[in-house]
């Protein structure tokens, strides 16, 4: 059982070692810049590049100008030459989501030392969190199709499939065990992590790469989200960095983002065999359904996910040292989650920090669970909680410690990370520090 506040524990038999992390967000192209941005309270939100000017959504975590060749030139020394070369060749004609997924996967793979001290390829799995990744690519090709069907992208038949992202990453890293996608809207990331833990616990794999595939944002989808009043539009269009403001009284909807992340999970025995020290431990996780298709959050479903996650991790509520909230910056969503956290953690809720990574990254949608999992691991390791930025006008009804605007030291033994999705999907994972 994990120990309390700041006392590290080992990777439990029922959990998994976290041995590698990767992230590319509006805060930067790797985990170092991600952490630096988080701890300094920097916003990764800016004006969209190249979106249809008629849509209501004007701002987001735009990564559409990401160039693989420039990225590999910048970080090339961090990768074995053959891996960087293979990436360049494989990803040449790949749509943005696949390129970014492969790039974050490489980061996590190399940090886990799998390029130097490999695990058997058939014992390595890949669970990719996400779905509807290719909307922007499909929309672009539809325009070409309208002019002349003959001239759509020649490999559209392969690249329009979400599974192309899984396939290209497996080919790049030589993963030959189970590989598939997990789709659960904005809960996809956590549920992919929970699924990966299941693969390790069942013995189906020793090492599981979990990717939160960045969603290349599409004008059509953005307009659809704006029309159901989910997005922050208008108010902060001239000050994009102020738009994502979870818990704040002026919050007015989420700010979509193209960021993504990856983690390597593995059995404690596999990490030992390979001589790799875990960064942290995945202790458990759970997901629930609201039995409700619409977007309205459900406190009961969120509470059940958190309670069951604690049970799977063998933790009591008063053993939670920190919560990375789903906290998207929507008026109802944030209030519902705060009520759920208070109900589950009781008096403990008032004693611990509860922050929102999305205040800086924006909402990475189906990748957000993995992005925030990486943020949680980094905070546990550094003993620092990042701020929730843009806390300017307190919402009197929300009274937890949201770590307003400034990072601070906070020793943690354990943490929870929440992710909830449209379609009534709730999820929570528990993470522990290790010595």
């Amino acid at each position, binding site marked *: 059982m994990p120990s309390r506040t700041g006392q590290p524990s080992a990777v439990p038999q029922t959990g998994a070692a976290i041995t590698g992390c990767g992230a590319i967000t509006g805060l930067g192209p790797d985990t170092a810049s991600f952490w630096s941005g988080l701890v300094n309270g920097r916003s990764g939100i800016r004006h969209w590049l190249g979106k249809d000017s008629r849509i209501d959504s004007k701002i987001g975590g735009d990564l559409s100008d990401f160039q693989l060749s420039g990225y590999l030139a910048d970080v090339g020394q961090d990768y074995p030459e053959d891996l960087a070369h293979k990436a360049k*060749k494989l990803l*040449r*004609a790949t749509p943005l989501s696949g390129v970014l997924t492969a790039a974050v996967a490489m980061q996590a793979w190399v940090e886990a030392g799998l390029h130097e001290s490999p695990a058997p390829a058939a014992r390595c799995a890949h669970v990719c969190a996400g779905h509807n990744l290719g909307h922007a690519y499909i929309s672009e090709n539809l325009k070409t199709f309208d002019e002349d069907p*003959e*001239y759509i*992208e*020649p*490999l559209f038949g*392969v690249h329009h499939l979400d599974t192309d992202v899984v396939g290209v990453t497996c080919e790049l890293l030589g993963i030959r065990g189970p590989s598939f996608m997990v789709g659960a809207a904005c809960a996809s990331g956590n549920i992919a992590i929970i699924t990966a833990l299941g693969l390790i616990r069942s013995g189906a794999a020793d090492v599981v790469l979990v990717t939160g595939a960045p969603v290349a944002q599409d004008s059509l989808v953005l307009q659809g989200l704006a029309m159901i009043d989910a997005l922050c539009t208008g108010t902060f269009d001239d000050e994009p960095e102020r738009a994502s403001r979870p818990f704040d009284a002026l919050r007015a909807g989420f700010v979509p983002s193209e960021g993504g992340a990856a983690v390597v999970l593995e059995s404690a025995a596999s990490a030992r065999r390979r001589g790799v020290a875990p960064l942290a431990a995945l202790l458990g996780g759970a997901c629930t359904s609201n039995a409700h298709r619409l977007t309205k959050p459900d406190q009961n479903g969120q509470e059940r996910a958190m309670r069951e996650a604690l049970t799977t991790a063998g933790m009591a509520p008063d053993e939670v040292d920190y919560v990375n909230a789903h906290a998207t910056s929507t008026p109802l969503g944030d209030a519902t989650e705060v009520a759920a956290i208070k109900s589950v953690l009781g008096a403990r809720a008032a004693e611990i920090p509860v922050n929102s990574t999305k205040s800086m990254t924006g909402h990475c949608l189906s990748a957000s669970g993995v992005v925030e999992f990486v943020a949680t691991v980094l905070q546990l390791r550094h003993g620092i909680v990042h701020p929730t930025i843009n806390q300017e006008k307190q919402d009197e009804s929300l009274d937890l410690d949201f770590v307003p605007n400034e990072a601070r030291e906070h020793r943690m033994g354990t943490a929870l990370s929440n992710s909830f999705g449209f379609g009534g999907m709730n999820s929570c994972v528990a993470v522990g520090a290790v010595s």
Partner: protein
Amino acid sequence: MLTRDQIFETLKDNLHLISEETRGKEISEDASLAEYGTDSLELIEVASRTMKQLNVKVPRTEVSKIDSIGELVTLFEKAAHKD
């Protein structure tokens, strides 16, 4: 009128661009694409790109049957002259 040489040169440029294995190699009309290590998906990309650049439409079912660059040039030549 599009000449055979123009078609060959365009195809060759696209082959070098798309199929990494062919870079730096002399491309001859007689050699088979398999010899250069060009796979079937790369061939589709080369043909599509060339079709767009030359504004010539070649039946895609025929593209998948070709073996050498020369056969591909002939396919484009026939289609260009038919237009």
